[in-house]
């Protein structure tokens, strides 16, 4: 009995049919795995954002005490604020003024705060409880009070409603960032202070008010509640100015040379390989370069935004070169040929015709490069930008930190309960800046996208 062709055909079809179901199942499984990968990636990122937002957003509102402060003349025993008299030299006046200021520094401003809090609580506070009372308010407030009075001495004898930052521990307690059921020995505040904090919160004297300190103050060790990002922000701003002023012109110029002028030989090949490699060198290596050459050899100051900017410039240079070259390459040769054909020189062709067309792409690449530099931390640690700096830098040569470095410093602070939220808030600020830069770049690209 021989198998007919028809039977063989039937048999083959059946095998195919049988395997087909299996193959389609496989197809579905593969596809689902792909989707699962996309979903996994997106979920992880969503978790990242949500967890940082949940922790960080509340930190933008900070426990603040709204009390009436009486500028008690009995406590503030000061001469009148010196006015410049005619005939007095500037230096003599300044000397008098400085003396008055240091006098003002000796006034017991804390006493004013103490009595204001006492009034707010509505109870006589015994002197042994004074420590508990003072734990309520941020220790920076007595200096704020002094500065306020030095600005405006007519406050003497008046009662003014002021808002004062509550101490970091009170903020933690009010927000419930510490377990309220822990026993006394493990609480950061005494039982009395906690009771007062709750009472004032219920009375509406302590409120969660928008924290301007976060934006206007610099970092602070003695009064964590008033620690802010202003210094780090200025440091980052100076660095970005250096990066923009150096890496964009240098990067664009070298990209133009390599793409439009360079002869194709081994030297330019080498430069090209070198740039591609430089783009993938770990950022910390650039930090080592900065530490050894800029600081060790050239003797530039430690912790200066100028040095940070130089290091970041070298780091972003390859990114900008690569983006600019891609942008130049996407301009069709016909544009160049047309310009050359009517007698333009090569330099004229590039600068009058090619470059304007490539500008949107160059801009996008540069913005992305700068955004990358803004978030970079590791190389800055090696050139001393992780030093504690209590002033807003006025020039790029003064000591400073940067936003990402401030995040690094805050996350390591011992006052974990408070700084976890503060760090997350700083991250939100940094991410906000970076994402808006990125969004700007993407928008620019979409807007000017040309298909040749």
């Amino acid at each position, binding site marked *: 009995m021989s198998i007919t062709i028809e039977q063989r055909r039937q048999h083959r079809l059946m095998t195919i049919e049988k395997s087909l179901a299996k193959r389609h199942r496989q*197809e579905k499984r593969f596809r689902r795995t792909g989707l699962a990968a*996309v979903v996994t990636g997106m979920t992880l990122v969503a978790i*990242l954002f949500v967890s940082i937002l949940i922790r960080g957003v509340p930190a933008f509102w900070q426990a603040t005490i709204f009390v009436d402060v009486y500028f008690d003349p009995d406590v503030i025993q000061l001469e009148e604020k010196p006015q410049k008299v005619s005939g007095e030299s500037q230096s003599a006046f300044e000397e008098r003024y400085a003396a008055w200021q240091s006098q003002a520094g000796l006034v017991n401003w804390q006493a004013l705060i103490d009595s204001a809090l006492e009034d707010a609580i509505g109870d006589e506070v015994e002197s042994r409880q004074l420590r508990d009372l003072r734990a309520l308010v941020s220790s920076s407030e007595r200096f704020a009070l002094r500065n306020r009075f030095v600005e405006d001495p007519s406050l003497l004898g008046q009662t003014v409603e002021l808002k004062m930052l509550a101490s970091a521990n009170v903020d933690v307690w009010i927000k419930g960032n510490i377990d309220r059921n822990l026993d006394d020995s493990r609480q950061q505040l005494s039982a009395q202070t906690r009771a007062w904090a709750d009472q004032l919160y219920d009375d509406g004297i302590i409120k969660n008010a928008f924290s301007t300190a976060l934006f206007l103050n610099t970092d602070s060790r003695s009064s964590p509640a008033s620690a802010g990002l202003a210094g780090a922000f200025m440091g980052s701003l100076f660095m970005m100015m250096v990066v923009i002023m150096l890496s964009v012109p240098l990067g664009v110029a070298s990209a133009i040379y390599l793409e439009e002028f360079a002869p194709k030989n081994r030297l330019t090949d080498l430069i090209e390989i*070198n740039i591609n490699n430089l783009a*993938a060198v770990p950022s910390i290596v*650039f930090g*080592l370069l900065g530490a*050894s050459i800029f600081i060790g050899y050239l003797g530039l100051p430690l912790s200066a935004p100028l040095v940070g900017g130089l290091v970041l410039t070298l780091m972003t240079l390859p990114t900008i070169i690569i983006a600019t070259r891609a942008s130049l390459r996407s301009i069709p040769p016909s544009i160049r040929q047309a310009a050359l054909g009517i007698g333009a020189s090569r330099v004229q062709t590039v600068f009058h015709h090619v470059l304007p067309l490539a500008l949107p792409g160059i801009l996008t690449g540069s913005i992305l490069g700068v955004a990358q530099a803004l978030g970079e*931390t590791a190389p800055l640690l090696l050139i001393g930008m992780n030093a504690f700096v209590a002033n807003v830098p006025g020039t790029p040569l003064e000591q400073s930190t940067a936003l990402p470095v401030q995040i690094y410093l805050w996350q390591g602070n011992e006052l974990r309960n408070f700084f976890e939220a503060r760090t997350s808030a700083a991250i939100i600020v940094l991410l906000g800046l970076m994402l808006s830069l990125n969004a700007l770049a993407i928008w620019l690209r979409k807007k000017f996208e040309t298909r040749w």
Partner: protein
Amino acid sequence: MSNLALIATLLLIMAMAYHLGLTRSRAVAAEQDVRMHSRPGYYGALVALWCGLPAFGLFLLWSFLAPQLIEMLVTQQLPTELVASMSDRELTTMLRRISAVAEGRNVAGGATPEELLAANHMARLQTFELYSLVAVMAVMAVGGLVYARRHISPQWRARNHVERVITWALAASSAVAVFTTVGIVLSMLGEALKFFSFISPAEFFLGTTWNPRFSTSGADAQGEFGLLPLLWGTMMVSIIALLVAIPVGLMTAIYMAEYAPPWLRNVAKPIIEVLAGIPTIVYGFFALIVIGPFLSNLGDMIGINIRTTSALTAGLVMGIMIIPFVSSLSDDIITQVPKSLRDGALGLGATKSETIRQVVLPAALPGIVGAFLLAASRAIGETMIVVLAAGNNPVLHGNPFEAVSTITVTIVNQLTGDMDFASPQSLVAFALGLTLFVITLGLNVIALIVVRKYRQQYE
């Protein structure tokens, strides 16, 4: 500050020179009633360049040489027996104090009479130096201006000269990237060689103990600088990261390139791009406060002891960080596979997944391997995540649930705060950096060659 003022003045004079050149060329053209070789702007630019460039070059040379010259003269003027009695280092410190006094600042402990004398001398020299610099620069700028302006004639090919200067400037900019590489290599080699004068290379590369001690505990309290625990820690974290990133990233890329509807592509692509830009310190913080505690609790539940900061925590988060990197690189490579290959497979009756697995991926394999290598070099060089989440425990062990330390973490630890490049404790950072640089460079070079070969295959 005086330097900035000087440069600003020079720029101002150059602007004037531009104007003079421009009007002069117009006047020449009108006078002789001929067509000039170039347009007036080029003559202006050329005169400005003649005026500014030589003066600026002199300025650069001068500011490089003059301080050294002054330092030399001041040293000569110091009492010889004093100089002879000091080591090089003491002399440098003294010169630094002298220049501080010369600038009118106070120095610790007050200035000694010799220092005061030297400072006066230095201040005089500096004043003289500044005045002579200004004078010479002024002569050069005006001389260049006058010379070039006189030279303007219809035959003078101003445009060609200006364009040559522009081309040279462009070429010089592209040299900066090369100098950066040279700078990296030289600085690291130099400092690393200094380190190897304390510790033999064999001890460093083959040592299994990392215990650098503190430089303050005396010169004889030399620590042990074994690279292997750090290298192993780096490898462990990177491998975990790649185990997370490669499957997820590759599957994402495949889905995006082959299956995803256009709207999803349009939404997901920019998101992935933005993700690649999130600073690593953010991922590190995320590891520290979310992933670490989560893993630790998970370990408690199933009875394994997982530390909050461990190789696993750091690796996992680093993997999350590299996903966008892997996926966008692979996506580019997969979309580069010619459509004809896909059509051929589909035409023979293969399903889409079969086409991808048996035709597209093998064709794209070299490129994808290149992408993986780049991702690996990223993982090895990553710093902030491991600084925050790996736990800094430089001990050779194979347990991913324990804390480890990596090369990058150690560089940060050894070099922060201490800028005295004399002890092996801080110099070791450069030896580590050199190792890191060589490893990542090797990976990158191989990856670039592979990717390039792959591109040529389909171009």
